[in-house]
């Protein structure tokens, strides 16, 4: 998928653990893991809002568009 989720990058910048973020965003670790590994098919605005609030960032910091050919090379 050309949309890359950079939650782990933002978490590292904010020095926040997965468990801590899960508690702040109020979602399960399993769902956060799905999001972090890029297996998620969609993200609700409410979840995105909670993540942005918890990580003190903008949606663009968490989500990034990488064209298919570039992401293939990863």
């Amino acid at each position: 998928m050309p949309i890359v989720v950079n939650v782990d990058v933002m978490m590292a910048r904010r020095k926040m653990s997965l468990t801590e973020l899960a508690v702040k965003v109020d979602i399960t670790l399993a769902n956060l893991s799905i999001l972090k590994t890029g297996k998620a098919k969609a993200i609700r605005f409410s979840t995105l809002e909670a993540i942005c609030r918890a990580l003190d960032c903008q949606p663009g910091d968490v989500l990034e568009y990488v064209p298919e050919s570039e992401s293939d090379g990863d």
Partner: protein
Amino acid sequence: MEPKIKISLPKVLHYLFLCLTLAAGLLFLLDLASSLGFTGHNPCIRGWVTTIGDFSKTKNGELQVFNWGERKFVMLELAGAQGLLQARYVAYLFFQHLQFALIAFVFYQMYRIFRNIDRGLMFREDNTRRIRMIGAAALAFPVANVVAARMIAGIAYDAGGQQIATAIPSLLSEQILLGALLALILISLAEIFRKGAFLQQEQDLTI
């Protein structure tokens, strides 16, 4: 405080189909053992036949019955039957027991579906596959029934000094038509489940 056990319709159906699967499996094994002569007597044909008074055979060996008598339940030992009858009986046994196996198979698939539903896993790929297989079984069942009936239809033999003929099945193709219709409905239902499974997966992967 003891945990409360919730009784729901899927749970009841889950255990009901488990019992039916076990019963059908047991019945299948008992009938097979009986037909093959493992239960004390020799392999035999058991079933309802029609006694006949007057019949002849055509040039190509087909039976022409002029007078049908009453229906009676008989048991004909396989050892006493002629070669052609034995071959037809073996084929009959296969298709007859295929029906039993299909019933047990359908009950088992229903049991697995309701076990999944009881666990809150309704729209899943395996449920879709199981409904599709039940649809196939719904078509295979009447086909096996018709073939089994044809195998021992119109056989005349002597039993205890009385001429007896197995019943010639009529309008059995209607069963196949009904089976095909049921299979079509089930396969359509499976298609709805397949779409449901896709939507469920989308929902599960929406964070």
